[in-house]
């Protein structure tokens, strides 16, 4: 039998719970620092404006294009390569008169170079009001997802576990966003989708561990809470690792083969799934333990006799 884990002894994960918490706190502090100082590189979906993707027949010099745009009176455009050295992405801030088509055509005319013709591949324009709406929708979606999950896990398991789960999800989302702000990847609507997927995925891991925890609590009476958690995590570890591995493999395939348009999406998933695996082991469980989860909490609720808490009448 080919196995990742040969151990039959539970690994004492929870010994490192403190260290992990400190590590996570430091990470989250760094992420917040980055989010507050650098901010996020909001994509077109949220800021509004115009993006034109142009493909040249040979690779081009970006500085030259910038000069050409300046000369055409389209100053202040950001110019970057997109995927290959022949593909160029030009971004213009939203401006007063809304004729995008002219703006787009103007860009195409401005960047034409002798003996290196350019072809328009994509033109996107988002009005500023729409951008605000999309941003609200995105934030709302993430909050709604967290709340629904809290409610579901609270009902199915127990509130301490539910808050542990939600903490670990928030942890993953913050870290993913932090990394995004650190390396200034553009945040657009697909990133919101990726974040929600990360939430779903990370939760999946957490639930598998919690399921085991509940089972062990109900089965074994004598051991300590810490031991129960250690056993549950050890028992599910090989599954956690395998699933993370297969998911990471397909995400890497997306990252590598999926083209420039879903690069950001794949990056968000890579970070999210990596940290999601770690957080479902440490953050979720450690948090639930800190809140003092005990065996009694896992048992099916006892039905009290009505009036049992009142003194008998004499």
């Amino acid at each position, binding site marked *: 039998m080919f196995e990742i884990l040969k151990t039959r002894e539970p690994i004492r994960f929870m010994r490192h719970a403190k260290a992990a918490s400190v590590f996570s706190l430091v990470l989250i502090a760094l992420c917040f620092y980055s989010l507050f100082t650098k901010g996020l590189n909001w994509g077109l979906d949220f800021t509004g404006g115009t993006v034109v993707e142009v493909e040249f027949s040979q690779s081009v010099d970006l500085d030259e294009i910038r000069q050409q745009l300046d000369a055409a009176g389209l100053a202040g455009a950001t110019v970057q390569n997109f995927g290959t050295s022949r593909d160029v992405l030009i971004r213009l801030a939203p401006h007063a008169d809304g004729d995008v088509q002219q703006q787009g055509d103007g860009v195409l005319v401005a960047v034409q170079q002798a003996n290196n013709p350019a072809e*328009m591949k994509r033109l996107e324009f*988002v009005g500023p009001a729409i951008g605000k709406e999309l941003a609200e929708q995105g934030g709302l979606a993430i909050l709604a997802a967290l709340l629904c999950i809290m409610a579901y896990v609270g009902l199915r398991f127990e509130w301490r576990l539910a808050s542990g789960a939600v903490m670990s999800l928030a942890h993953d989302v913050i870290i993913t966003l932090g990394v995004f702000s650190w390396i200034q990847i553009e945040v657009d*609507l697909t990133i919101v989708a990726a974040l929600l997927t990360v939430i779903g995925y990370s939760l999946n891991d957490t639930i598998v561990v919690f399921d085991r925890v509940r089972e062990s609590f109900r089965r074994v009476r004598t051991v300590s809470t810490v031991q129960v958690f250690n056993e549950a995590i050890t*028992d599910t570890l090989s599954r956690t690792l395998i699933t993370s591995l*297969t998911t990471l493999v397909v995400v890497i395939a997306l990252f590598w083969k999926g083209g420039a348009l879903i690069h950001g999406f794949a990056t968000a998933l890579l970070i999210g799934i990596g940290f999601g695996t770690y957080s479902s082991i440490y953050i979720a469980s450690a948090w639930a333990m800190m809140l003092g989860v005990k065996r009694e909490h896992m048992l099916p609720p006892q039905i009290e006799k009505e009036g049992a808490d009142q003194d008998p009448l004499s």
Partner: protein
Amino acid sequence: MLNRYPLWKYLMVIFVVAISFLYAAPNLFGEDPALQVSGTRGTQVTSEILVKTQQRLAAADIEIKSAALEDNQLLVRFRDTDDQLKGKELVAELLGDNYITALNLAPATPSWLQAIGAGPLKLGLDLRGGVHFLMEVDMDEALNRVQEQRIQDFRTDLREKRLRYSGVLSKDDGTLVVFRDADTRNQSLSYLRDRYPGLVFSERDSGDNFGLFATMSEQRLKEVKEYALQQNITIIRNRVNELGVAEPLVQRQGADRIVVQLPGIQDTARAKEILGATATLEFRLIDEKADVAAADAGRVPANSELMRDRNNRPVVLQKRVILTGEHIVDSSASMDEFSRPQVNISLDAPGGSRMADFTKDNVGRSMATVFTEYKTGDEKNEDGSSQLYKQQEVINIATIQSRLGRSFRITGIDSMAEAQNLSLLLRAGALIAPIQIVEERTIGPSLGKQNIENGIMAMLYGMLAVVIFMAIYYRKFGLVANVALFANLVIIIGVMSMVPGATMTLPGIAGIVLTIGMSVDANVLIFERIREELRDGRGVQQAIHVGYDKALGTIADSNITTLITAIILFAIGTGPIKGFAITLIIGILASMFTAIVGTRAIVNLLWGGKRLSKLSI
């Protein structure tokens, strides 16, 4: 006996996979270059047209695969795109103005599959190229117009009833009518209240002026906005049809927005010109009493306003609108018997009777056609969107020769080109409220192809890696999981092809790729459990049974939460995000089915009920 399925369960699994495969099959057949012919403005496409088209193409030695009439459209399939382009030119020339010819890619699904309603996946714009517009209707302007109309109506009504008023004006979202005495005010109030049930009336007195104030009730306000949106959707639909796009989509989004998608269109500039021409038309009387020179100097009579014609000459028009462009059903340019250009106009029934009523008293007077365009200016609204400004111009002045009915003509036009232009503007309908493009996304066709390739490559590589890993790690059971994985893929594509309105987008493909990675999770959970049970010294059959049983709850719990997030995404997201959410939802459900029921069926079939001492897991 442990681990034996009843026959019906085996049949169910086979049935689900087989049906999915049938519906996924059309995606394997590719597409034919085709030509789609449809009639404009209610013109029927008849079998006569079909025969004519076939003859014309045969005469030009262009071979066609097939030509057929389907729901009032003619679809001609060609062998290759060269024939298609040549064919389009010939057919467009042959059929003339009353038909629209559009290039299209028609799915080459065999007829026996079409018979069960199977067709290939619909591809989103990011995969096939095209334009997506999001347009916003300017509701303030729509309400303003209703308000203007109401002021006119009040005046007419009160005059008819001989109720003297000293003024009617717009005030804070309503209309204020001012009277000199309370008695007349009260009579007017009770009269108007009965006449306009959609309005809320109140008294407003100040000093020795007695006023009545009318605003729209909430209900009426909703109706007006709804009507404005619906009207605009209809008009945009007509305009899109004029463009000749194969499968356009015009859909409302929310309270005041319209989504327009034009797949495969190259000439976006023209599309925008036609869609975005937020033009309206009005017929009004010329104020002959007014002194044009004085008006030009700023002294305009109270119920008139000053406008300019195309040559920038001043014209004084009565404020009262005889008729707006929304009543125009059709218009065309032609020559009269003296070969002078003219424009023929047909009105709908209410428009016709209004025109008739009005013109019978005004024969010999001059009627002007006013063309109003809304353009985005440099000024900004508070929310940062560009402000619209109104540009009005008198495009034609004609003398009313006789009482006009539902169809009449405008003569005295300078040139045929002018007549054609005017008739196009009249025909395209008048938008009841100006419209602004608030979002636009254009994807070139080459990018679409590239996106599909990228998506499929990512899917193949990801799948290959997962399949190899599972086979090595879980040996024979891994192979079972791989069969389930393929079945899963077939189910996703089959269901996506089945669901009407589901479109495949690039994020959708990403969703499938992700599902492949995550769907083995259920199997991993089960197999790990079985291994555990074996390690704990259970018999083989027991281990399989208990493993599946114990994993079930965990799988359900962990998948339901992912499903919750996917459903939230679907509810909140638009466009590509929705596409991603749909594939994720279908993927999760399919992976639960294949992992729990599907693999179990195979395992039971191969290992169930046998005396085994070892298991290849």
